[in-house]
């Protein structure tokens, strides 16, 4: 309230002095704003970009809006050095991979869950020393209760185009990017149709197929009731007992089996062309040379490369270095031609 007395008498108490200062604040603010117009406008522009720009402002820390609905699960320390010694090359590969995913997650505001996949050797052979991916996914879903989609990435992967967000790459046009029918691409020769499948069901699992079947090196899974059922039924002692000797790829083969036999799994699973999230380098799937659906193409700016199987007979360290350098040079080139894609 404006009291004429204030101007005539200096207020005695501290409270009234503070109140006076508060009262004069709007005037002060106005003066500052008018005097430092240019600075204020610059600050406004920067804060606009900070808040609304997807890739953030250089030299400024990125503002996060709270919990993201995407979590990247990065499986590191495969084996934990138990069966094989982890030398400096293995450590270097791990460092590069983690740094790459961290930078990507920071850039887009995704969570990154780095999960340890060391072999615990708790159990004897005829028991559950396998299917760890399932346990890890379940654990991560508990850790991030608000997230919706979880992107599993094996260690030997590299995100080549970090400017592309998951929304842009997969989810914005999820019905166009994924396919449900095996009619066009069926490397495993699974039955094309089984009875009782519901093709209008929500997609809860997005899996790429490589030359030998499903590839769980880079896939997406959504939090849902269907997923709870899948994560529960995925490992079963009867399945394990009958098939674990044949199922080299453990949970991958189990999923392929369930997909061929159980209609509810088909209802919730969709496939994604491999090159969208799981392109292979030349060494993997070597028999299918030149197959445009499988191999990484820098010309097309493929999103992620998965150096699958590099620990058997190829050079993980060399491949990782190669792709790291390639990605850096691609980023540099694209800075001058941001619209060249």
């Amino acid at each position, binding site marked *: 309230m404006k009291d004429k*007395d204030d101007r005539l*008498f200096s207020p*005695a*108490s501290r409270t009234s002095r503070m109140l006076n200062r508060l009262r004069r604040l709007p005037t002060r603010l106005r003066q500052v704003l008018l005097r430092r117009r240019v600075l204020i406008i610059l600050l406004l522009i920067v804060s606009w970009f900070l808040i609304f720009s997807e890739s953030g402002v250089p030299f400024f820390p990125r503002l996060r809006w709270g919990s993201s609905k995407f979590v990247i699960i990065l499986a590191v320390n495969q084996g934990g050095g138990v069966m094989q010694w982890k030398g400096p090359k293995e450590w270097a590969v791990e460092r590069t991979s983690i740094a790459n995913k961290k930078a990507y997650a920071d850039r887009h505001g995704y969570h990154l869950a780095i999960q340890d996949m060391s072999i615990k050797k708790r159990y004897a052979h005829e028991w559950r020393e396998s299917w760890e991916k399932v346990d890890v996914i379940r654990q991560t879903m508990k850790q991030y209760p608000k997230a919706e989609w979880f992107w599993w990435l094996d260690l030997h992967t590299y995100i080549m185009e970090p400017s592309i967000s998951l929304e842009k790459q997969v989810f914005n046009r999820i019905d166009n990017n994924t396919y449900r029918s095996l009619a066009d691409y069926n490397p495993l020769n699974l039955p094309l149709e089984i*009875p*009782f499948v519901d093709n209008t069901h929500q997609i809860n699992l997005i899996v790429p197929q490589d030359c030998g079947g499903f590839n769980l090196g880079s896939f997406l899974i959504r939090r849902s009731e269907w997923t709870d059922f899948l994560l*529960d039924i995925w490992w079963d002692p009867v399945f394990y007992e*009958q098939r674990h000797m044949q199922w080299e790829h453990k949970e991958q083969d189990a999923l392929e089996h369930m997909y061929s036999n159980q209609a509810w799994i088909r209802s919730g699973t969709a496939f994604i062309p491999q090159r969208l999230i799981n392109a292979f380098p030349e060494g993997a799937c070597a028999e299918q040379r030149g197959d445009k659906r499988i191999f990484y193409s820098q010309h097309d700016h493929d999103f992620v490369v998965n150096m699958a199987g590099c620990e058997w007979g190829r050079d993980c360290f060399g491949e990782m270095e190669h792709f790291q350098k390639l990605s850096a040079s691609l980023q540099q080139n694209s800075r001058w031609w941001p619209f060249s894609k």
Partner: protein
Amino acid sequence: MHFSIPSRSADQTTLPGSPSFKAKSRASSHRTSYAPSIFARLRSLIFHPAPPPHSSTAFEKKRRPRRRTTVSLLVIAFVAAAAVLLTILYVAFANFATMDPTGPHVVLVLGLDNTKYKDDYLAKVVENRQEYADAHGYGLYVRYVSDFKNLVHDVTKQGWQKLPLMRSAMHENPGSTYFWYLDQNAIIMNPNLDIESHITDVKRLNSLVLRDVPVVPPDSTIRTYRHVPADRMKFIISQDHEGFQTGSFILKNEEYSRYVLDAWFDKLYQEYKFEKDEKGALEHLAQWHPTVLSKMAVIPQRIFNAYPNGVGEAMYQDGDFVASLVGCDTPERSCAREFERLWDDRGRVVN
């Protein structure tokens, strides 16, 4: 205003208007003029409320509402009414569109085996089910089990055929809520009981559910859940002294049921040669997969699966809902004859 001379030190001067409990301030003692403090102002406000603002004395000419105001008010009223109406219509139509108009609330599922049984017996069984379904407005889904023999791994194991049969029933009746599978060799003795009030109503189910009973009698480690509320249960089944009895069970039409039926019917379970075939597979599922067991309700056998030659709690008594002729397909017994005997004694629908 009333003030009191404080009984305190002399350097605190009490001026008229300043409260005696005011904080000490050196400046106040050097004041030459009177400055009303916040507290003083507050006090004066409380004890001498401000005079009312001047308005009522002056005559205020009532302003005649202008035409523009009327029109704009009418427009606003019309738009608001239209918005409300459209919302109501939209909601109504949205509900209408998603409501599945087809499908009775409960569907009875029956699989007939015409390779082992004579047609007139099968016809009687169908008549029994039809009677019941008509009395309550339920659906009846009847198929020959031989329709599914290509899906089953071992055709001699009859028990497995009921799983694709149920799956097919659910697939073809997307609008129905409950699916009750009842074996061919069973008879509905008391058609006056309806499924909802007798079994599936939440309160009733809550009273029937057996909690903390071993999944495999007499003493398996895994027991049914104690605290899962009945409204979450989607699979209603009973046990006899051997274990789960799959001759009579109810499934709700949800994701869970499709998952259980498909997983239960998996090729690897069929090939595993469980001792009790699909009953053993179900027990395995219930013990190893909490997502299955957590929504299973185990209810007393007599509710919908009593045995006429049973003992103790399993024994069929007059007025029970269903008499199950389990095990009648052995050479010593004859399903048709036993059915015939019970057929004459069955209860009739009371209208």
